[in-house]
């Protein structure tokens, strides 16, 4: 009886492994084909194993789209947004969660709504206003917009975390003569560092993955992010199969790196906020 039950466990595991394999097969097949030459691809199709390592296709594509530049843009934009949005969220949440300013329920509701708001309802005015301000097609414009948009979620999350901050610590510091700024930078920020770290990672990855607003705001090649550059190329339908595959692999690789580096933070963080 026991042996039968033990045996019955394996089909479930096998089914789950098969399902998991289905999830990662697209990545594997993209990687395998990225190292084939165009001739080999058209001769053997996408399912064969590569004869050898042919990296010219990737290298050509990298140079053609100036991929280093796109990576730099993405890192610059996502990094600035992550830091800026965390700072803005901390300031807001400090006033709401610890300062408990009057009307905080309504202020918090405002941030929740701002977080839910579809970017479509902002995109044209943001495009128009940035043109008026001379910021259109600059990385700065995208940084400003996403710093604010991400801070909506950050404020919402941090306010609830800080509303549970031990009051005794703050009272003690106040008695010792610390001002509100000192309490914030010397006590609240250091104590909340784990949560801030989670937010930092999330803001970085979310901004990296954004598409609609960067697509509208960044039209010149020199300013585009990885997502926009690759998405626009694909949208033009000018690439052959091997080029599309190179584009896919180069787009997947940074995400894979984030995944491996931040995996714990990402999966844990999702549980923290039941995130986007």
């Amino acid at each position, binding site marked *: 009886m026991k042996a039968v039950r033990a045996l019955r*466990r394996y089909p479930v*595991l096998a089914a*789950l492994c098969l*399902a*998991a*394999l289905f*999830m990662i097969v*697209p990545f594997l097949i993209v990687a395998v084909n990225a190292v084939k030459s165009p001739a080999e691809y058209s001769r053997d199709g996408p399912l064969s194993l590569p004869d050898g390592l042919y990296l010219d296709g990737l290298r050509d594509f990298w140079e053609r789209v100036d991929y280093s530049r796109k990576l730099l843009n993405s890192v610059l934009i996502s990094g600035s947004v992550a830091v800026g949005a965390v700072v*803005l969220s901390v*300031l*807001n949440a400090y*006033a709401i969660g*610890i*300062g*408990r300013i009057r009307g905080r*329920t309504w202020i*918090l509701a405002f941030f*929740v709504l*701002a977080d*839910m708001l*579809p970017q*479509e*309802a*902002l995109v*044209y*005015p943001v495009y*128009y206003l940035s043109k008026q301000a001379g910021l259109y097609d600059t990385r700065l414009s995208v940084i400003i*917009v996403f710093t604010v*948009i991400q801070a*909506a979620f950050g404020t919402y999350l941090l306010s*609830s*975390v800080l*509303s*549970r901050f031990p009051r005794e610590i703050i009272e003690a510091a106040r008695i010792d003569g610390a001002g*509100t700024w000192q309490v*914030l930078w010397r006590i609240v920020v250091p104590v909340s560092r784990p*949560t801030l770290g989670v937010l930092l990672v999330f803001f970085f990855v979310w901004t*990296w*993955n954004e*598409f*609609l607003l960067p*697509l*509208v705001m960044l039209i010149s090649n020199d300013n585009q992010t990885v*997502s*926009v550059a*690759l*998405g626009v190329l*694909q*949208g033009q339908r000018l690439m052959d*199969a091997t080029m*599309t595959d190179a584009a*896919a692999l180069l*787009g997947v690789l940074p*995400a*894979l790196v984030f995944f491996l580096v931040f995996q714990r933070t*990402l*999966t844990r963080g*999702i*549980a923290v*906020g039941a995130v986007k």
Partner: protein
Amino acid sequence: MTVTVERGGRVTGKRDGAVRPRRARDPYVLFLLPGALAFLTVVVVPFLMNTGVSLTDWQGVGRPEWTGAANYRELMGDAEFWESFRHSLFMVVAMAALPTAIGLVLAAALFDHVGKHFGSRTAAVLRACFYLPQVLPVAVAGIVWSWILAPDDGSLNALLQAVGLGSWRQDWLGDPDLALWSVMGVMVWVQLGFPLVVFMAGLERVDPQLYEAAELDGAGWWRRFLHITLPQIRPETYVVLTWCTIAALKVFGAVYVLTKGGPGGATNVPSYFSFATFFEKTQVGYGAAICTVLTMIILALSLVGLRLQTRAEDAEEGLRT
């Protein structure tokens, strides 16, 4: 840290009733100043502008011409508009209903079965595989799949050919009857990891004794799933359904990269429809009206979702105390 955010938010709200001595000047208000200015410029003003523009006829240059509700009246009779929202319902199935249902079963199987019999490491590795597409930029996911689904030398058609099902080969994204289903399939793949991870985290806080007691009473896996797992993680289910439904209504990048709303509008969704109306047809007033309708639907859904979740959490807390 594992409680969901709304709970904390509500706690803050409840304390609102407490009376606090009025101070002449609240020093904390100053900290809200940068945030208030930033949100005013980037969110409030653009949103009000968008709403205002939706009541005008405007090409993006010159003076907008006030037309009142004309754009909305036109929308009501616009087949393309209704079609795009009909496709949104399909996206809700692909991005909210299916991933939630599959995610529940997978999460329970991974947590309860694999985690118990094969160790939590195995469960964690499998979970990581399911979650991987979630970290991918949606534009990149689109490129991966448009390469796989390509009609002539795509991997899916090559695979069908290789296993002797050559007659099943299709132009997956180019056939108007198939394109929407193909996009839906891709979106299930993209979205599945999110519910799975949230549910597995939710299961961590379920008392294992519940399962043990049920097992002793002879309840099979399926009955334990129905009578313990599902009721216990109901708050998470509402959160996931709300988030995923909103994400489905906003879907843009995948459609832009996979089909550009085509062929012949077969995969058009409100977000892409508004984008094309803004920037290709430059009917800014009309595009703004589409976005306003979309916003209203999303805000209404958010409120319903928050209410359901709050109620589920209250019920759960009531059980515990």
